[in-house]
C-alpha cells in the first residue's frame, strides 16, 4: 500500500536533486533544467495531497503551476538568448555584472 508519505518522499528527493542541479550547473540553461525538476516535485506534492485529502483545490493549483512554469520557461529562455546575443556566453560564472 503506497501511502502519502511515499509520494511526498519521492517529491522531496526530486526537489533536492533539482536544487543540486541549480547549484552546480554552469550553463544557464542547465540551471533552468534544475528549476524544472524542482517545480515538478512541487507538482507531485500538490497532486498527492489533493488525492489523499479529497480536496480538488490541489489539482487546480497544479494546473496553475504548470501554466506558470511554462510561461516562466519561455520568458527565462528569451532572457538567456538575449544575454547570449550581447555577451556571447551563457556561463553563469561569467554573468556577474552585479558584483559588489
Amino acid at each position, binding site marked *: 500500500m503506497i501511502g502519502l508519505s511515499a509520494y511526498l518522499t519521492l517529491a522531496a528527493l526530486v526537489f533536492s536533486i533539482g*536544487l543540486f542541479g541549480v547549484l*552546480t550547473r554552469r550553463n544557464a540553461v542547465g*540551471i533552468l533544467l534544475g528549476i524544472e525538476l524542482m517545480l515538478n516535485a512541487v507538482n507531485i506534492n500538490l497532486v498527492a495531497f489533493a488525492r489523499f485529502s479529497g480536496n480538488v483545490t490541489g489539482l487546480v493549483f497544479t494546473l496553475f503551476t504548470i501554466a506558470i512554469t511554462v510561461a516562466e520557461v519561455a520568458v527565462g529562455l528569451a532572457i538567456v538568448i538575449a544575454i547570449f546575443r550581447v555577451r556571447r556566453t551563457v556561463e553563469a560564472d561569467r*554573468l556577474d*555584472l*552585479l*558584483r559588489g
Partner: protein
Amino acid sequence: MAPSIGLPLAVLALPFIAFVLLAVAAPLRRAGRAAGLVSILTMALAFAAALTVWARGLVVEATWTWIPADGGPIASVGLMVDSLSQAMLVLVTLVSLLVQIYSLAYLHDEPPASLGRYYTYQSLFAFSMLGLVLAPGFLQMFIFWELVGLCSYLLIGYWYERPAAARAAVKAFWITKLGDVGFIIGIVLLWSATGTFEFTELFDKAQSVSGLPLIMFLIYLGAVGKSAQFPLHVWLPDAMEGPTPVSALIHAATMVTAGVFMVTRAEPLFALVPEVLTLIAWVGAFTALLAATMACVEGDIKRVLAYSTVSQLGYMMAAAGAGAAQAGFLHLLTHGLFKALLFLAAGAVIHAVGTNDVFRMGGLFRAMPHTGIVFIVGTLALAGVPPLAGFFSKEAVLGGVWEAHLTGPFLMLALTALLTAFYMFRVVFIAFFGRAHAGGHPHEAPWLMRGPLWILALLTVLVGLRLAAGGLAGGGVEGHEEAPGWLAPLSVGLALAGFLLAWAMYQRGVIESARVATALGPLDFMARRRYGLDTLYAGLYRGIMLGFSRLIGWIDRYLVDGLLNVLSALTLRAGARLRGIQSGKAQDYVYGVAFGVLLLIVWAQLWR
C-alpha cells in the same frame, strides 16, 4: 582691623600699588624714568613705614579668613609682625630703595619702555618679598615664595633677547621649582596632620605629628632650592646674566635669603627634628666650602660674588642647623648689607670698564677711588674683620656651630673663612691694583650710583660698631653670649691668613698662582668645571626628560596610532572579505536562499 596693623599693611601695600599702577597704566610705564620715580617714591614711603615699625618694636598679628569652612577656616591670609619680620622689612625696603635709585643711573641707556618694565617687576618683587616675610602661615608664605621666584625669572631674563639670559632665567626657575615641590608636599602633609597652615598653631600642634622628620625635610627642600644649597645651587651663578642691581637685590640680600628666613621662622618646628637640623648644618657647611673653592678660580667678578653668596648662605644655614638660628639670621642681615654693597660696587666697575672679567681690569683704584674704597670696605666685612658687621655675625655663626659640637661643619666653615678672605682680596688686588689695562675708560660712577654705595658702606660700619657695643635692641637678634674665647682671634687670624695669601700671590707675585694651580691640580680642575654638577644636571635632563618624551612619542606613534591603524586595517580587510558575498553570480545567491531555508527548517523543528 587693629589700628596698629596699618603701618605694616602700608609697607606691603605701597609697592603693590606701584606695581598695579605701572602694570595697568601703559603710558606711565612706557615713559621709563617716570615709572622709575613712581616706584622709588613708593619704596621710599614703604621704607619709612618699615623703619617706624622697627623703631617702635611693633608686634602684632592679624589674619583674615580666605577659605572658610565649618571647623575653622582652611586658609587665611594676614600679617605677622615680630622681631624677625621687622628686621626683614627694613632690610628689604632699604636695599630695594637703594637698588632702584642705583638702577636709574645703571640702566639709563635702556629704552624707556624696557625701563618701565624693569620697575614694574621691581615693585612686584618688593611686594612679593614683603608678603613672604609678613606671612603668618606656610600657605601664604608659599604663595609669595612662588611669586618671588617668578620675579626672579622675570628680572634675570630682563634682557630676554640674549639667549644666555633667557636660559639662565629658565634654569633658575626650574631648579628652585625642584625644591618647591618638596616644600609644598611638606606643607600639605603638615596641614593634613594638624589641620592648619598658621605658624602659631603649628608650633603648638607639631609635637603630635608622626613622620615629622620627613615632613620637615621636605619643607627644608624648599630652602635648598631657594637659598642655593648643594646640590641645587647651580642656578645662582648663572643668574648673574641679569642686571647687576638685580643681582644685588635678589641674589644677595633678599630672595635667596628667603630660605634661611623660612628655616628661622619655623625654628620651633625644626627643633623637634634634630636629625634634620644636623643634615641642614652639614649641607650648609659643605655648600659654603664648595662654593668658596669655586670662587677661587673664577674670573668673572659677578660670578665670584655669586659663589660668595652661595658660600655665605651655607654659613647661615649651618647656623640654623646648629640650633643657632638667631646667629644665622644676624648673618643674613649683615650679609645683605655688605653683599649688596659689593654687587653695586662691582656694577659700577662693570659700567665703567665694560667687562666683567677681572683679568681685563687693573689699577682701577686710581681711576675710581670711591668705588675702590667701598669695595674694600665690603671685602673687609665679608672677610670678617672687626669692627665691621661681618665679623660679629660670622663669629656668632662659628660659635653656634661649635657650641652644637658639630666638628666637621666647624672645620669646613673655618676653612671657608680663610678662602673667603683669599678670593675676595684676590679680586681686589687684580682689579683695583696692579697694572692698568686699556679696556673702556674707567671713570668714577655718577652720584646716583655712588650714593647708595656710600650709604651701604656707612651702614656696614655703623652696624658693626653697634654690634660691638653689644647687641641690636629690638632687632630680634642677640649677640652670642658664651662663645669660646679663642674664637675671635681664630676668625681674625683666618681672615688675615687669607689676605696675606692673596697679597703674596696677586699683589707681590711672590707665589706663582699657576704653580699653586698645578699643585692643587685635581681640585683646580674640578673647581673650574663647577664639579661637573651642571653637566650632570644637563645630562639628567637630556637623558631622563628627553628620553621620557621620546618614549612617549614612541608610544603615541606606535601604540596609540598603531592601534587606530590596526583597527582601520581590520575594518578594511573585513569589508573586503564581506564584499565577496556579493559575487554577482545568481547561483551563489541560491546557496544563500538554501541556507535560509535550512535555518527555517531547523528553527521550525526546534520550535515544536
